[in-house]
């Protein structure tokens, strides 16, 4: 018996060793790169990094990337990069992780940073810029070309404070729109409703739906540890619509406190819409207990129980499998409130930041500033390009094209504020206090004061 145990252990050990030998050796991510010395022709100095890469100068090099998108998104990203990899010979090794936010901090601290990281939350990137780990893109990229290819808002949002002054921390590669209201198109048309173009019309439509016997809005903000984030999106939408862009920017940076009249007013507009009698499906109590992904499902029942749902374009992946865009559902732009603030659009997106300054890394970064870098993903569906040299023809489905149009036609574009705020607020007290307020645990003034108190000094 004893011998058998040892035999078993020995066999297991041998199997394990053999397995690990069979696996394609897990090579260290930071391969020492034999940097091609200046053997390149002298005129290469006038060429941009991207042009040099396209000329094959960096062929055979490896650029490591890390980011939060996994699964289907990772497949689409890898496919959209395939063309570039083929032309330049640069091997882009993307590593997606569900725990990206945690792992990137450990890896940067531990000296194992990827060459390029994809940040959906610029606030997180700002902390690495602050510690001086991020390469300043201003030094390597042609600013005139960037200005020509991006809406100025995007460039402004990439500027962050480093230890040696402000740097351009990264480039925007993929964005998504948030100011969208989804509705069950077939039933909506059958009921004879009209798409509202002003806030008053939206409120009137909501009242109409309630009078007709259903709830107007499908709202759910439950999301595990991140419960409350959809409410912060609403707050940002209403801030953009009820006060100036300057105030919004000040609010995001902490200069305008949550307890100020502007922010409180935005919260009241939200409350008026959500808590009005019968406006929200399930009533106020159901908002904090409904999973955000399940929230739109009552729209798709035979007879919709609620008719309107505000969420970013990603929400379509939570819709029932058979639901068809343009038939079962469609969307409209969440209208502005005060005409003097126009039609703002709330967006989110992925900013690519470089942690290494090797030439091939710069070439890949430069590639990300072109629409071509996201073209494959746009065509595959699920991504929207912020680049001016992208074409609306690339969008193969009406939803993505419609969102892209909304972003292009916006009077102003602002980034999801909670992603820009310091982590303790943007992914902490802001979520939590909004949840407490909506569930009725605390009143609005207390909730806003709590967020102010948590702002890092």
């Amino acid at each position, binding site marked *: 018996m004893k011998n058998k145990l040892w035999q078993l252990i020995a066999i297991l050990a041998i199997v394990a060793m053999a397995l690990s030998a069979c696996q394609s050796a*897990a090579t260290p991510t930071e391969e020492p790169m034999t940097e091609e010395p200046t053997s390149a022709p002298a005129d290469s100095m006038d060429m941009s990094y991207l042009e040099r890469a396209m000329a094959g100068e960096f062929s055979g090099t490896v650029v490591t990337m890390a980011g939060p998108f996994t*699964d289907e998104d*990772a497949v689409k990203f890898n496919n959209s990069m395939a063309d570039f990899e083929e032309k330049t010979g640069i091997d882009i090794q993307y*590593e997606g992780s569900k725990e990206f936010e945690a*792992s990137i901090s450990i890896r940067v601290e*531990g000296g*194992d940073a990827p060459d390029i990281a994809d940040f959906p939350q610029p606030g997180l990137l700002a902390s690495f810029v602050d510690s001086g780990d991020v390469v300043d893109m201003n030094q390597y990229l042609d600013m005139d070309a960037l200005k020509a290819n991006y809406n100025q808002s995007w460039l402004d949002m990439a500027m962050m404070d480093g230890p040696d002054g402000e740097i351009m921390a990264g480039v925007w590669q993929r964005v998504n729109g948030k100011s969208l209201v989804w509705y069950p198109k077939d039933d909506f048309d059958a009921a004879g409703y009209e798409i509202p173009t002003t806030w008053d019309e939206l409120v009137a439509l909501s009242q109409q739906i309630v009078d007709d016997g259903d709830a107007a809005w499908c709202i759910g903000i439950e999301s595990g540890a991140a419960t409350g984030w959809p409410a912060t999106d609403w707050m940002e939408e209403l801030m953009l619509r009820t006060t100036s862009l300057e105030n919004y920017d000040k609010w995001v940076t902490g200069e305008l406190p949550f307890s100020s009249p502007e922010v409180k007013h935005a919260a009241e507009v939200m409350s008026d819409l959500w808590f009005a009698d019968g406006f929200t499906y399930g009533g106020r109590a159901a908002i904090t207990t409904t999973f955000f*992904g399940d929230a739109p499902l009552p729209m798709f029942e035979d007879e919709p129980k609620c008719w309107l749902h505000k969420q970013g374009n990603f929400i379509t992946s939570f819709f029932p499998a058979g639901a068809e865009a343009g038939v079962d559902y469609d969307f409209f732009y969440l209208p502005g409130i005060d005409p003097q603030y126009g039609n703002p659009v709330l967006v989110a997106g992925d900013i690519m930041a470089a942690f290494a300054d090797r030439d091939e890394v710069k070439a890949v970064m430069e590639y990300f500033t072109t629409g071509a870098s996201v073209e494959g993903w746009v*065509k595959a569906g699920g991504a929207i390009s912020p680049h001016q040299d992208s074409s609306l023809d690339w969008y193969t489905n009406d939803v993505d094209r419609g969102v892209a149009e909304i972003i292009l036609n916006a009077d102003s574009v602002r980034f999801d504020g909670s992603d820009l705020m310091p982590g303790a607020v943007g992914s902490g007290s802001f979520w939590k206090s909004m949840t407490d307020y909506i569930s009725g645990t605390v009143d609005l003034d207390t909730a806003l004061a709590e967020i102010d108190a948590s702002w890092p000094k």
Partner: protein
Amino acid sequence: MSKKASQKNQKKISNILVNGTLILIVLLWTIPTIGLLVSSFRTRDAIATSGWWTVLPHREWTTTSQIQLDEDTDLNAPIVVNGVAYEDDALRDGVALGDGTQIKWQSRRNRIIDVQEKEWAINSEYTLQNYKNVMTGKTYEYVDSEGNAKTEQGDDMSNSFLNTVAVSIPATIIPILIAAFAAYGFAWMKFPGRKFLFTTVVALLVVPLQLALIPILRDFVALNLNGTYLAVWLAHAGFGLPLATYLLYNYISSLPRDILESAFIDGASHFTIFTRLILPLSVPALASFAIFQFLWVWNDYLVALVFIGAKPDVQVMTMRLAEMVGSRGQDWHVLTSGAFITMILPLVVFFSLQRFFVRGLMAGSVKG
């Protein structure tokens, strides 16, 4: 009643109490697992709309007839149905009528009210799709840059399964071997500083491993070890050693002194005693620690993520599982089947090693 009979009764009652409590605890522990197992065979929509217990026969409200109210019924006033006025809120939740039926809004918009009766029902829609998705990888459909619709098969579990095996087995054996030597040394060898060293090892038990991640990562990067299996083996071995040493020390130090002394008198060296006596006698302790360590490494996500990373060719199964739910968690339903598939090998390990520590090896050893 005689004294004997009352004693017998008492024994019976205490037996029932103990067994009843045990059954209750077992039920509490297994019901969530059973729920997960049932859910793993249900479709996403079914999981979202009805509980797993509806697969058992149960009574639920079924509509038997409908009442069409007047189209102009005022929804804000009490609703009159068959001559009785009801509150609107009550009608949303359903109002029991006393004769076993209830009335409930079917559609407020169309002023239709359902009359429902409780009937036996059973939910019998099952699917193997969740298991297929996990075993063979999901199918992605997208349009490539030339505009052709393409489908691509995602990664299946096999690669990450092999990776996890390649990580877990050495990461279990290495700390056990080292800890067994160390425990023997602390228990039976006399050397200066023994107590101090042992206290240090035990004190390390309270150091959370998260604290050591960044310093170790720096060392591994400096040694060019990061991203290799050796790195993660060493990390797991290091994190597991304090507990292993402590557990094995407790066991080995309690072995009867007589056996070791007789061996010393016969001229055995420490090494002979260790390999010929201590190891065979410690099999129960070794096996139980092996189970702990194996399960810990098998379920580990953080250490593997930091030291070997999440690239598809090296990622372990916990990462594959986490990725399966999609970037925004939209495919949460595949986790149910994924959880069961990843459970298989740990269960095999548990049941095969369990025999070694259930059997009291010590019983016959001193007599011999």
